[in-house]
């Protein structure tokens, strides 16, 4: 049992990190193996490939001083409570500059119980340029035995001055079989369900797990795709957009609602406000700050939900295009094959390409703060296919 066990299909990256951890823990002075280690790392890879899991495995190995980690450190890192581990991640749309300043300050402490102090920034791509600049000095010359680990989807998501200060390790998209095998082994689902989930999630491990373990998520995905194929008129498209926002909103609400109430109750208790008592004006600022944070989180989870739907749509149109161009690559949404065949015969390849472009535009627009409903409606306008062409 080592920290690297549950990481699927990333043997190359694991070898790099394991060697680095071994070099870092072997002789702290000098040696040929030292160049295997660096003070700042960037892990890039598509969403769901296990970037942050790999980052934490590496952190465990570094802190414990053993390339395979020890049990106590594994538990503490898993709980994110190890004193020598600092994590910066965000549930909002972007990372705040003050949070980065705080983590930079903590980077100059020497490790307390472990061998290294490790600072992990998940979602480093969510740092705006101004925020990234705060990091530069600390990233370039961290104190001895401080290690930075950044995670981002690709190197292009970071500004060049950050890229030049880190050693980059790329993860690859795990194969569908790898993901399915992991689901069978870890979550105990049947091989058929695991294969379908891995395929539909396009090897996104987190998504595949959700699809494999929740039949509701599977049904909802299928219903959304079927409704996208059934768009004939403008009013169909507008209605479909409203439904999608509703689905994504419900999803987001289910995640955040309970947590919001819980956090508020905790905050009130720690401020000494009895349940039901009116909030003293002097404390309103604090509760307001909490509510603002929750609102940011809600925006993010709504956007994430919509983005998942859009990814599903692009897989669908990819399949349609594949049939239209007689490609021989595997169909992702095999369960919907008859509908996809029909869609392929109704429309032309040019139309399908236009739809794919529209999906990309919609994703970019939603990221740029365009009203999600409007962006989806505009996108769905290109999904309309008239029955006349088939007849």
């Amino acid at each position: 049992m080592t920290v690297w066990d549950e990481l699927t299909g990333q043997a190359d990256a694991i070898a790099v990190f394991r060697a680095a951890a071994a070099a870092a823990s072997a002789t702290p002075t000098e040696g040929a193996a030292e160049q295997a280690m660096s003070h700042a790392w960037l892990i890039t890879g598509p969403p769901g490939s296990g970037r942050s899991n790999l980052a934490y495995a590496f952190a465990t190995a570094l802190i414990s001083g053993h390339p395979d980690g020890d049990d106590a450190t594994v538990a503490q890192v898993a709980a994110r409570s190890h004193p020598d581990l600092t994590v910066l991640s965000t549930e909002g749309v972007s990372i705040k500059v003050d949070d980065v300043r705080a983590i930079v300050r903590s980077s100059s402490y020497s490790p307390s119980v472990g061998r290294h102090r490790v600072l992990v920034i998940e979602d480093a791509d969510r740092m705006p340029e101004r925020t990234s600049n705060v990091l530069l000095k600390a990233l370039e010359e961290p104190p001895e035995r401080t290690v930075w680990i950044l995670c981002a989807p690709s190197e292009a998501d970071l500004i060049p001055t950050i890229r030049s200060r880190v050693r980059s390790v790329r993860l690859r998209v795990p194969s569908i079989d790898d993901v399915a095998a992991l689901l069978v082994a870890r979550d105990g689902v049947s091989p058929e369900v695991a294969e379908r989930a891995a395929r539909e999630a396009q090897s996104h491990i987190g998504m595949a797990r959700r699809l494999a373990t929740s039949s509701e998520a599977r049904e909802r995905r299928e219903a959304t795709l079927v409704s996208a194929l059934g768009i004939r008129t403008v009013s169909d498209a507008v209605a479909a957009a409203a439904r999608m926002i509703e689905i994504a909103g419900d999803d987001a609400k289910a995640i955040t609602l309970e947590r919001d109430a819980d956090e508020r109750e905790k905050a009130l208790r720690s401020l000494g406000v009895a349940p039901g008592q009116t909030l003293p004006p002097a404390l309103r600022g604090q509760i307001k700050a909490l509510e603002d944070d929750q609102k940011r989180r809600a925006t993010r989870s709504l956007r994430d939900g919509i983005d998942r739907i859009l990814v599903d749509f692009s897989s669908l149109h990819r399949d349609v295009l594949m049939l239209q161009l007689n490609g021989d690559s595997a169909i992702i949404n095999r369960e919907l094959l008859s509908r996809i065949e029909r869609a392929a015969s109704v429309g032309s390849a040019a139309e399908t390409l236009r739809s794919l472009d529209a999906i990309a535009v919609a994703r970019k627009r939603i990221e740029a703060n365009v009203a999600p409903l409007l962006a989806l409606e505009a996108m769905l306008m290109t999904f309309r296919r008239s029955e006349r062409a088939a007849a």
Partner: protein
Amino acid sequence: MAARTSAPAKARSTVSIPQLGWNQVRPAPVVLVSGTETFLAERSIRDLRDFLKTEDPSLEIVDIAADSYAPGELLTMASPSLFAEPRLLRVSNVEKCTDDFITETLAYLQEPADSTFLVLRHNGGVRGKKLLDAIRGGLGGGIEIVCAELKKDAEKYEFAAGEFAAKGRRVAPSALRSLVSAFSDDLAELSAACQQLMSDASAEITEATVDRYYGGRMEVNAFKVADAAIAGRHGEALTNLRQAISSGEDPVPIVAAFAMKIRTMAKVFGTRGGSGQLASKLGMAPWQVERAQRDLQGWTEDGLARCITMLAETDAAVKGAERDPVFALERMVGVIAARGRA
């Protein structure tokens, strides 16, 4: 059933003091000025002060803020002085008052001081309901001045006519009408415009006078711009858009207003049936459906699709994707006024 009949009866029984309009204010031991229209409330309180001041120039005026009320304040202010001059206590923000204020005012109202006039300004809301109910129930022998918002054009027309009548000036009805439509959003502005006309213009005020002072001015909001564009009146829509932007409307809500209207039209497009039936099916009000059906005249499906695409593009543009938000809006108005055929 019993509950339903008793509720209005109870509501009626609680009000046993005269409820007067904003211009009918008269001295009383306690004057409750309620309602959301701040301008009228201020006017009304000012009238009361002017009246009391002419009656007795030694009137002492005290202002109290109920939201930062300290215990004992009211009693200190209302207690009789050596020369027994009349007092006017003006209390603001009663809708945000402290608990002390409620208890102490209730205690004071049991025995109001002589020649002291307590004015309570309540902006609406449930805070201080106990106090309001007590006053409306006749405690302290007060009156209530109701300053409800003037929503209808007819009410505003009446208000403007009253402004001129109060100064004994003659004004042509057509002049009043154009004045009211030019200042339909803000009562204070309408009143200021009336005063301006009275002090500047001589003799009778006609439509020509109004046009000379306020010609070309109109209150436009995003929806008016959208209405003109959707009906295909390109020129009018552009003028309105410019007016809206120069009077401080932000481009983002303008796009949102367009999106809302076009979205409703898209939902209704291609559906058949009565408006009531459609309304329940689409989750809208029947008048919205009827409105959309009227708006849809001359529109095609592809035109709608192009307009929706344009809307998303414009929304991105006004949020920073392009340099000039106003140009983006004007381009959008052009496409929509051509019903997407451009």
